[in-house]
């Protein structure tokens, strides 16, 4: 009977309630007090600025993130730069070019890239609707958002090939979007960097070099044109930055990776507070605990041997230790494992690359003397002699590849992407990675992404 009474009460309440639910006008509900909704986030310059600052903070907040190890270590393992001194399967899969779609770093790279893309798209849409943000701030943030979006797609397309090209926040449509041809994704990358170049100003928004400016967009545009084989455009864009008085090659190689160094075009600030004294996560991983201790990551002998005798970069940017009677080397561009106050920031884009971009683009256009001059700028800083004046086109292209290898090693996968785009990856890597095939040059689409979007297809050679 108890049971029955309860239902009767319900019955009664429901009949009483019906007339009230039937009222004609909806109640107006005010926005929440303890949550920041999009409309409010773009109501003034200060909060709008915070929406972009959030991207960089997340990129570099912890170890193994998009802004640090994920982007600089994994492709270095896959190429012939350095490798983990011990064995762990998710690292070994990169080292042995035997990735599986379950690899947690592959998944992390995919997911974080698309999360930044959503973030950038949300900023773009928020700014478009905003009336409270000043014109100058709007241009700056719109430029940064497009830069970040282009930057993510640049790496996505070069790692995975065709990827879904998502340019808005319509998640209901985007969640089941199929892959877009790599060429079209790269077109979008060019468009984003071009827009960013127009929108951003020469000056940095802050006193530090930690937010992208016009030169950052121009450098990425030059690099993208280089990857696309658009030599004239690549050289033109590179020249714009090379002529910019804000940037210099530093004579002292040991100062290049310091925070706000004059060679820095874009750095990521150290934001982490979880591990005491971290300057860069790269340095935290690469530099041993004690000055004479063993390192966790060793350079491949192939890279060690690639340095010409007397190359100052070998003396300053690598370091050795001896164990079991054998000498091992590790990358030593970042010199700090932990230290306070912070002296080093993660270098994302730096000035030296522009000479190398232009040298290659000029060579391809048969402007050999000019190309050689650019390479010599880099070589002189490394205390090496100038290139012989009678080198032919192929020889200069080989010199470009060599110079890129020893100048940009351990930074953002330059070597891995260079080997792939020049068609040399399998041939060069085969001696140390006997199982490598062309399929391994494109990463597998993560299993989690495949499972949640039936429209995605897997890359060849993976299942």
């Amino acid at each position, binding site marked *: 009977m108890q049971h029955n009474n309860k239902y009767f009460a319900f019955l009664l309440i*429901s009949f009483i309630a019906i007339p009230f639910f039937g009222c004609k006008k909806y109640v107006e509900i005010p926005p929440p007090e303890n949550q920041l909704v*999009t409309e409010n986030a773009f109501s003034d310059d200060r909060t709008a600025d915070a929406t972009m600052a959030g991207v960089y903070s997340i990129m570099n907040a912890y170890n193994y993130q998009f802004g640090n190890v994920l982007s600089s270590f994994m492709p270095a393992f896959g190429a012939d730069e350095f490798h983990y001194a011990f064995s762990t399967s998710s690292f070994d899969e990169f080292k042995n070019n035997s990735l599986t779609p379950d690899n947690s770093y592959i998944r992390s790279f995919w997911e974080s890239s698309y999360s930044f893309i959503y973030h950038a798209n949300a900023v773009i849409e928020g700014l478009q609707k905003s009336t409270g943000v000043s014109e100058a701030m709007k241009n700056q943030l719109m430029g940064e958002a497009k830069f970040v979006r282009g930057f993510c797609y640049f790496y996505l397309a070069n790692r995975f090939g065709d990827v879904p090209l998502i340019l808005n926040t319509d998640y209901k449509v985007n969640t089941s979007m199929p892959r877009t041809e790599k060429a079209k994704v790269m077109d979008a990358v060019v468009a984003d960097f071009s827009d960013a170049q127009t929108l951003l100003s020469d000056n940095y928004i802050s006193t530090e070099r930690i937010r992208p400016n016009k030169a950052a967009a121009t450098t990425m545009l030059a690099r993208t044109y280089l990857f696309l084989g658009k030599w004239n455009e690549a050289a033109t864009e590179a020249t714009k930055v090379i002529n910019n008085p804000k940037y210099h090659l530093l004579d002292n190689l040991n100062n290049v990776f310091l925070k706000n160094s004059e060679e820095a075009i874009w750095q990521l600030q150290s934001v982490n507070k979880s591990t005491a004294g971290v300057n860069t996560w790269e340095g935290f991983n690469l530099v041993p605990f004690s000055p004479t201790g063993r390192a966790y990551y060793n350079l491949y002998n192939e890279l060690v041997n690639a340095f010409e005798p007397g190359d100052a970069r070998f003396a300053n940017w690598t370091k050795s230790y001896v164990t079991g009677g054998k000498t091992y080397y590790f990358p030593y561009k970042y010199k700090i494992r932990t230290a306070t106050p912070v002296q080093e920031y993660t270098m994302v884009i730096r000035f030296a690359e522009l000479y190398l971009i232009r040298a290659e683009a000029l060579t391809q256009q048969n402007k050999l003397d000019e190309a050689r001059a650019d390479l010599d700028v880099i070589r002189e800083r490394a205390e090496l002699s100038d290139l012989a004046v009678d080198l032919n086109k192929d020889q200069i292209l080989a010199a470009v590849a060599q110079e890129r290898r020893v100048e940009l090693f351990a930074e953002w996968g330059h070597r891995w992407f260079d080997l792939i785009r020049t068609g040399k990856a399998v041939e060069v890597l085969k001696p140390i990675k006997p199982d490598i095939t062309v399929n391994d040059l494109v990463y597998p689409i993560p299993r989690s992404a495949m499972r949640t979007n039936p429209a995605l297809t897997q890359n060849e050679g993976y299942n």
Partner: protein
Amino acid sequence: MPYPLSLYWGLNSYNFFNIPALSFGKIRMSYGTTGNDQIGDYQYLDSWASAGFPYGGVSGLAPARVYNPDYGWEVNKKFEAAIDLGFMDDKLLISAGYYNNRSSNQLVGYTLSSQSGFTEYTANLPAKVQNSGVEIDISSTNVNNGNFQWNTSFNMSIPKNKLLSYPGLESSSDAASYEVGQSIRMIKGYHFTGVDPATGNPMFLDVNKDGFYTEDDDYIVIGQTMPKFFGGLSNTISYKNLTLDIFFQFVKQEAPLLDYGPLVGTIGSRINKTTDVLGYWNGYGEQTEIPRPTTTTTEDAYKLFRNQYRYSDAAWGDASYIRLKNVAISYDLSKLTQAWKMQGTTIYVQGENLVTFTKYKGLDPEINGFDRRFVYPINPFGSVKSPKLPVLRTLTIGLKFSL
């Protein structure tokens, strides 16, 4: 809005059947439609939240939630029918019920593909899901004569689940997880067909015979995460001041074995496995069910283990068990302690989880192993358990006073 309706009919008042042994009878039935208000406020609005650490002196913001204007009530239609019968002056009570709940428009953390920027959002799932089942309760007073009493009770549930409809399932993020007509608690995977004696590599059913093992083409239903039935049997026997309670629990179910899920290392890697792996393939021609050990990422054995074996029915199996959940012996000392003005004094010994009968090759069948949270497909209907301690075997000796 709820529209409940409830009816009951007491048989005894009519003496309808006129069965002498029948001492009590009741039929009840209810039907109702309910919503659910266990959801947060403002979940339809897109919002921004702190991005964690300040960057360049600016406290950054990051998107916290997507905008979802199509946000509505979920609808649960609940039907229940039961019969309660008492025999021989209610010494034997039997209650049997059937329920059928149909949920539609459920508000769940709906899966998004990560390319959308988020991996889920709170939304109304277009699916209609049916949970139905039978529940039986029997209790009897076997003996009741002054000094000696013996009571038995038994209960059992047989739950069933079925996805009735899901418009647009094929192109949704749930396409790999559900099939209309199947339980939403089904598990898909590869069908393990044995170890190739020549290579030691595991082999699987290649459903479409294209020479490759792919999820899209070669997955079959390998099991269910929902128990087939479960219940308990309890006996209480007392003689004078001595009381004995015995409670057995039983579950018929399937579960992931130790080798199931994306975190499992290959055979040969430095992780714990069952002793079955000692029978691994050890050379050309050997017939075994355990693949060749390997830690080399370039070998087929490695890839087949990581991509197929640990998502196959080789790593899925029976996890049914019968467990002696509770035994308690107590002795009432009240009469002895009355002189000291203490009303109730009992001394007791109690044991929990003393014996388990199971063929499960995993950790504890009651929590289905630590890997349960990686059961694929991860189920939005709340069956996913987080890793926790297996149930403990405990023994308690106690003395209870009441003043």
